[in-house]
């Protein structure tokens, strides 16, 4: 019993669709060159010396006390941030799903918190942390009268990263809690369990894989984070910053490559566990839809403390964001609180702010539609078509999620500065805006693809089949049926990718050349120098741009989106 005939017929049918075949081939080539190859070249760099295969490079970098320290530092931060973010995320999710919130104000707070990770540039919290709690910090110095508080180091990074990443956990866990059938908990209550007992014996075991999942996702984010440790780390180096310094400070490309391999190995391991074990498990236990509304907890002894705790945290985070525009408006932070537009003025006069915004804006605007379209095409192929190489496309585009920006940056430097394998092919890309756009695309591809895949899974497969059956080829099916049906997902992919690109720094900072000025790179530079006024002015404008784009997207989806008149079949 062999399935050979159907396989060869399927192949023939596929070949009968030249646009489809071309697309698949181009995609595979793109993913190979711009995701797999740069990672492969890191391996080549770090394992192959003059005398062939060698471990010399690793022996050398492992001999560096700095590097060994960086590994433990990174893991320590990642672990603490992972746990703290998951717990705070769980608290928020639980309060939203289980506790009756009295006021609109609370609902508003939760909404803001869920928006933050989307619109926030990476290092904003580090900036405000320094401005609030640093040596000249408003809270430490003026409220508490502490003059020598140091926010730099382990705690600084940990707090800032936790506040940056917990909203992600909150959103993930909220989805899980929502899907728990309330009757499970009611049954336990009915049999005499206290609320705490129900939480410990029913709710918690059900979401345990989900908690693990949230922990690992934050863990990966934390150890891949470059911007925050850079600004607030001080002498506390993490892997991402060490790699950066190794290449920009010590000019040790081989060593940096080997360090990047170490970092990549850690994130990849985490990613594999998260993606192929926990993610499946966490959705498998909770596949059922809630049978009806959950009875929210109204008991004051529960609601009041939980509400206060959440509001305090949320307000604190919001305060930190508000601090940034003020940082740009005060004459000298910590000394002179007269309002001034001098920093904004300086940004646009002395520091070529206009060029920076234009470059960042244009490059991101070019990358956004490419990413959105590419991720929709990948989702379509993955969900709706069968062909060889489908697994490859899905795995590689998801793999990009586990690759820290710094690692990708080093990979691009090693992979393209001399052309592919040093042959000079594609060398022209290096140092141009094109490679920056490509990095933007690669960095945002996984998020877009993930949202595209989940949107497409909800569309009955026979809708596309019917169009195919009526005589449309794959290209037409995609353009006339698939794309219109996932318009919302496309739009949000567009904006997410735009926002991610314009706020990106980790990979970009290694690849940008003086001909391009990017906002994030500028912020980083001025924050490093301690020019917080300028850094804040740049950051404020950046936040306005990203927040504006998200508002615009929501407006467009609300008024022109598919969901308005199309009920997608479940």
């Amino acid at each position, binding site marked *: *019993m062999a399935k050979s005939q159907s396989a060869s017929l399927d192949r023939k049918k596929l070949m009968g669709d030249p646009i489809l075949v071309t697309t698949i081939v181009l995609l595979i080539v793109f993913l190979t060159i711009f995701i797999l190859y740069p990672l492969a070249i890191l391996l080549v760099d770090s394992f192959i010396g003059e005398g062939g295969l060698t471990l010399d490079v690793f022996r050398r970098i492992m001999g560096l006390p700095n590097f060994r320290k960086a590994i433990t530092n990174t893991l320590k931060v990642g672990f603490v941030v992972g746990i703290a973010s998951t717990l705070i995320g769980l608290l928020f999710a639980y309060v939203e799903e289980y506790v009756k919130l009295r006021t609109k104000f609370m609902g508003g707070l939760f909404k803001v918190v869920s928006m933050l990770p989307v619109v926030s540039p990476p290092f904003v919290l580090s900036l405000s942390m320094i401005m609030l709690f640093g040596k000249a910090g408003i809270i430490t110095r003026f409220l508490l009268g502490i003059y020598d508080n140091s926010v730099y180091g382990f705690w600084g990074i940990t707090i800032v990263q936790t506040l940056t990443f917990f909203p992600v956990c909150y959103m993930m866990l909220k989805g899980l809690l929502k899907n728990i059938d309330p009757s499970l908990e009611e049954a336990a209550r009915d049999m005499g369990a206290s609320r705490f007992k129900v939480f410990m014996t029913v709710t918690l075991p059900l979401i345990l894989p989900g908690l693990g999942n949230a922990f690992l996702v934050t863990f990966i984010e934390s150890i891949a984070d470059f911007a925050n440790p850079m600004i607030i780390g001080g002498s506390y180096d993490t892997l991402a910053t060490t790699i950066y310094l190794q290449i920009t400070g010590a000019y040790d490309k081989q060593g940096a490559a080997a360090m990047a391999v170490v970092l990549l190995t850690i994130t990849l391991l985490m990613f594999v566990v998260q993606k192929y074990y926990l993610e499946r498990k966490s959705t498998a236990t909770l596949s059922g839809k809630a049978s009806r509304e959950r009875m929210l907890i109204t008991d004051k002894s529960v609601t009041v403390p939980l509400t206060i705790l959440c509001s305090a945290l949320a307000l604190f985070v919001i305060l930190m964001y508000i601090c940034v525009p003020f940082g740009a408006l005060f004459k000298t932070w910590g000394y002179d609180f007269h309002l001034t537009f001098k920093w904004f003025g300086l940004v646009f006069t002395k520091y070529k702010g206009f060029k920076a915004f234009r470059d960042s804006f244009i490059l991101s605007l070019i990358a956004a539609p490419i990413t959105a379209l590419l991720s929709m095409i990948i989702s379509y192929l993955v969900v709706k078509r069968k062909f060889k190489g489908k697994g490859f496309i899905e795995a590689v585009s998801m793999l990009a999620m586990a690759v820290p920006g710094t690692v990708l940056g080093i990979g691009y430097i090693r992979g393209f500065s001399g052309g592919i394998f040093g042959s000079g092919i594609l060398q022209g890309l290096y140092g141009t805006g094109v490679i920056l756009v490509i990095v933007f695309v690669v960095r945002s591809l996984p998020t877009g693809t993930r949202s595209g895949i989940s949107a497409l899974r909800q569309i009955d497969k026979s809708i596309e089949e019917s169009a195919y*059956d009526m*005589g449309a080829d794959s290209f*037409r099916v995609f353009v006339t049926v698939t794309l219109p049906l996932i318009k919302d997902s496309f739009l949000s992919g567009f904006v997410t990718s735009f926002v991610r690109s314009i706020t990106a720094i980790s990979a970009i900072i290694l690849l940008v050349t003086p001909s391009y000025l990017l906002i994030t790179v500028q912020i980083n530079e001025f924050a490093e120098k301690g020019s917080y006024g300028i850094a804040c002015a740049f950051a404020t404008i950046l936040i306005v741009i990203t927040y504006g784009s998200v508002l615009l997207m929501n407006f467009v989806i609300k008024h022109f989106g598919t969901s308005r008149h199309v009920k*997608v079949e479940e």
Partner: protein
Amino acid sequence: MAKEKKGVRLEHISKIYKDPKTGKNFYAVKDANLEIEPGSFVTLLGPSGCGKTTTLRMIAGFESPDEGEIYLGNEPINALTPNKRDTAMVFQSYALLPHYNIFDNVAYGLKLRKMDKAEIKKKVTDILGLVGLEGMENRMTNQLSGGQQQRVALARALVIEPGVLLFDEPLSNLDAKLRVSMRTEIRRIQQEAGITAIYVTHDQSEAMAISDKVIIMNKGLVEQISTPQDAYYYPNNRFVADFIGEANFLDATVEGQDMVNINGSKVKCATGSFAVGNKCSVVLRPEGASLSENGALKVKVAYSCFMGSYQDYHVKVGDTLVKIQDYNPKNSKIYKVGDEAYLNFAENTLYAL
């Protein structure tokens, strides 16, 4: 209406799937040989998992057969993609394009064929008239009832004048009453359009009502190809007898030409090719016998229930429980549980397997 009625021929068609649990290959369809006449209405009938939908999807081109060749007219179509095949399918879930209105849904296939606007408009209007949806061109699909959506799906498939029309359980999402009226409607439209139709269903009464021929499948194998009448009166085997309508099976021995012995009594029964002395199973439909004070076969009543149009009995023939539906019970004696009675068989009702 169709340019050319096309027949469909399946030669030694098999489809192999991998069982996701055991990882073993199995035949979803095995060695199916079908000849579907141009212009006829043929139903693939069988329980779920019998391979009927797989067969239909192979004809449409969504699945590729592992053995054998499919012909549309005289053209082998194995290697053609669905969009290149002269077939049109009506889906179980209707599969209307939710972002188009009714007109654009129906016009979709015509636009792909680069027809000019005026002609498209005329064809769409005509076909919407045929399915009884005139004037609804501008509605969106979610403004229609299930039955109306099904008509749009049918119109969309008909309008491109395919050689063969394929139906994948098109009525299973409708309520029982609408199902009955829609199947009459589908039959009328098929006859009017004079188009070849292949219809998949697990509902045997739907298949009987609508088809020129039924193809009964079980576990990937074709069990019988015949008219609905023949499938009912002359089933090829026990599975078909049991699946089409209700059937009782009585153990018997052939005593002579068209004569069998059931539980010691001689009864007239079509024995076909059975030789004298052979063991066989006699198929008895519930409506094929009635109870009275004297007759061919002595039985004991084990269950008796008034159902309105008939009296429902379970009676014991030896150790075998037999279901009998005695119509017009008002005019005959009603037996109670425990009563003894005799079975009387109507003419030409018993059939030996």
